[in-house]
């Protein structure tokens, strides 16, 4: 070929053509290719690594807290340090881990694949959101060095208006993290609306997508309110505008209203994606069409909308009008309806399914149990008379940990185990995964069941010291936390071993009918080498072909077919 002809051919060749057997991890190499990638899968993986680091940091702070609480009075640190530790535990876990965990890490990876799209609607914006996340994380790290942040993750005024400079850094950090969350949500909504592949109509959307879609709506609508609240708080501290500081005529309760107008919907940013994962896992490991598809889908949307109407239940004893508290209490009970719809539909899906208890399923089943406990104890707190007794006690701490950890983290772990073979192309040691599950499940329940008892007996939250009579329960709780820590350690080693020497996974190691399992073992950089056409729903096991549900490798499938043809 002449030089001219070669140049001509190069000009006409599709610059985006990628061989069909390429996979997203190895197609490009080097750290530069990662930092400049617009591939949603690679961005998802980078998010995953980032949030796992944040989870590790938050977890270490939690263990430090529980160690301090082994004895009344000083155990290993001073009260000021203790205050700083629980603030950092809360802020890191909420803003750097849970909120981005499922949507930004796992959602980024699987959502476009499930839709049959090549990428999200705005790939560059997607990468930008990751960079913004990193910048926000740096600000929160700087905050640690700038003083003692002891406001709690809620930044209530006047604690925060009187705190030192670390509070400004932390507030700005969370402000920045908020924009990362908004951009992810915006991207997902536009993607679901405009990037669905041929045949992927709204009633065929995998329920994971319905869940992340509802989450995205909250992210876009609620997060800017947190942003303006924190901007006002930062300005309060820098120039003293006097909006929240009572000394200047401001109202601290207004801060609480603003804060919870975001942070209550944010509870649904955290829990909806967990529920979304459970849908996929329950269907796959029961080999059954999900029961009540539209009910589950709409209950996600209903939770997203109801989540905006109940923020006042965090403020029953803050001095807001008693009529408001009654309305907020009544609206809070409504949340039980869509949550119940989900639980019963999952149970109906399990009924007469062919259930197999692999690790993702174990986490999802645990989710159902633990979330039910978390949800039902929420009713105690939503009831005005009982809340006066339970407000600001360990009962509240136990309640939201049952929802956030028993719910979201178990959902996240379920998803991580479930999609691990798709993300890494490797299997993990199922036995060790089950050991880790047992430790995490037992450790979690020991930690937080004892806190329900502590709280109902009057142990206030966030206290450095306590009466001697609470010590046995506190020690039980700390013991549970150590078991939980060991469980996560076992899990980390198990995953590390899988990365290093795990058996290669086939295309569809669980035999799922879900669309994301129809890609090659590690997906093509454009997800599907050829644009798929969807002719069935993601849970239609009765319509899926034998090849689609095949759990081995493609080579094994070919030999099977050849053998059949011979016979």
């Amino acid at each position, binding site marked *: 070929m002449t030089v001219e002809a070669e140049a001509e051919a190069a000009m*006409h*060749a*599709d*610059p*985006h053509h990628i061989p069909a057997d390429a996979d997203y991890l190895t197609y490009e190499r080097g750290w530069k290719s990662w930092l400049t990638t617009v591939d949603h899968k690679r961005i998802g993986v980078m998010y995953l690594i980032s949030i796992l680091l944040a989870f590790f940091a938050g977890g270490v702070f939690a263990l430090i807290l529980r160690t301090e609480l082994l004895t009344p009075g000083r155990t290993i640190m001073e009260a000021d340090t203790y205050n700083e530790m629980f603030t950092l535990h809360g802020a890191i876990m909420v803003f750097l881990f849970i909120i981005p965990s499922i949507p930004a890490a796992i959602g980024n990876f699987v959502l476009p694949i499930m839709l049959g*799209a*090549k*990428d*999200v*609607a*705005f*790939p560059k*914006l997607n990468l930008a959101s990751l960079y913004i996340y990193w910048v926000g994380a740096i600000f929160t790290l700087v905050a640690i060095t700038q003083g003692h942040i002891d406001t709690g993750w809620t930044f209530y005024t006047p604690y925060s208006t009187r705190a030192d400079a670390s509070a400004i850094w932390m507030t700005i950090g969370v402000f920045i993290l908020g924009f990362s969350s*908004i951009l992810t*949500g*915006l*991207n997902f*909504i*536009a*993607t679901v*609306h*405009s*990037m669905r592949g041929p045949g992927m109509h709204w009633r065929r959307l995998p329920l994971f997508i319905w869940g992340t879609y509802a989450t995205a709506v909250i992210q*876009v*609508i*609620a*997060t*800017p*309110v947190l*942003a*303006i*609240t924190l*901007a*006002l708080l930062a*300005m*309060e501290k820098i*120039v*003293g*505008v*006097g*909006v929240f*500081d009572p000394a*200047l*005529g*401001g*109202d601290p309760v*207004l801060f609480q209203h*603003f804060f919870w107008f975001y942070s209550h919907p944010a509870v649904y940013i955290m829990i909806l994606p967990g529920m979304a994962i459970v849908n996929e896992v329950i269907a796959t490991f029961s080999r059954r069409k999900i029961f009540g598809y539209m009910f589950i889908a709409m209950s996600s949307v209903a939770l997203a909308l109801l989540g905006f109407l109940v923020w006042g239940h965090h403020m029953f004893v803050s001095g807001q009008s008693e009529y408001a508290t009654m309305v907020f209490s009544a609206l809070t009970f409504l949340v039980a309806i869509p949550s119940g719809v989900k639980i019963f539909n999952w149970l109906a899906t399990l009924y007469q399914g062919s259930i197999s208890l692999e690790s993702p399923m174990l986490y999802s089943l645990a989710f159902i149990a633990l979330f039910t406990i978390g949800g039902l104890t929420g009713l105690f707190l939503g009831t005005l008379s009982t809340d006066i007794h339970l407000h600001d006690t360990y009962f509240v701490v136990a309640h939201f940990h049952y929802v956030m950890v028993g719910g979201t983290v178990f959902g996240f772990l379920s998803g991580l185990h479930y999609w691990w073979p798709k993300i890494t192309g490797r299997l993990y040691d199922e036995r060790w995964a089950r050991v880790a599950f047992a430790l995490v499940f037992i450790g979690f329940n020991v930690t937080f069941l004892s806190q329900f008892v502590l709280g109902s007996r009057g142990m206030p939250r966030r206290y450095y010291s306590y009466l001697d009579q609470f010590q046995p329960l506190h020690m039980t709780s700390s013991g549970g936390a150590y078991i939980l820590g060991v469980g996560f350690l076992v899990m980390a080693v198990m995953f590390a071993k899988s990365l290093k020497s795990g058996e290669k996974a086939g295309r569809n190691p669980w035999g799922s009918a879900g669309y994301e399992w129809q890609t090659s073992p590690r997906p093509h950089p*454009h997800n599907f080498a050829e644009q798929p056409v969807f002719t069935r729903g993601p849970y239609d096991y009765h319509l899926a072909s034998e090849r689609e549900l095949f759990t081995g490798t493609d080579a094994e499938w070919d030999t099977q077919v050849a053998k059949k043809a011979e016979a």
Partner: protein
Amino acid sequence: MSTDAHGNSKFLQHHYDTPAQQFSAAKLGMWLFLAQELLFFSGLFVAYGVYRSWYPDAWVVGSHLLDYKMGTANTCVLLLSSFTAVMAVRSAQTGNQKATGNFLLATIFLAGCFMVVKYFEYHHKFQVGYLPGQYFAPHGEGLVEIVAAARETGVNGVPFHLRTFFGLYFVMTGIHGLHVLVGMFVMGWMWNRNRKGEFSKRYSTPVEMTALYWHLVDIIWIFLFPLLYLID
């Protein structure tokens, strides 16, 4: 129009199938962005509503201390700039590259006028001590003006919460001003892309999205102006 091997135009990004799909995604994305902008400002409007209902005296006096003539002038300037922004979109859609560039420049110019007027308003407030919150310390002419405004509106004495009014005034107009500056920057970028001939009859999405953003900045001012300047 240059195309690649698939017969696609060069503006079509690899992950889209058709220009129509790309346009509808961009438009939805932009509207979602505007929705979050609106919610961002909503916090300020709520704070304004709460404190106005609590401290009506401070709000009436504070409003009288603002220069409604300058506010009116700025409102007209912004409305006119929204018109030139629309004309820039129209010119881009009809493929009139020169007119697109000129209308974008006109919009940037009007936005600049807005900021200049804002500068004079702020400058005066700083001089007489109408500073936000804890720095509120009117003196000389500032004090005289407050007494006059209080007499005019039938308020007794200097309301303590004037500082809260000015705190919110500076935060609200300041954040709005920041949005104007961002708009000017983005329109400058669009002007440059237009100069390089990136837009055509078939592709003018970025200009349209920029104009959408500009209309939002305009509409927020339309609410800020009466709420801050025209209370009686």
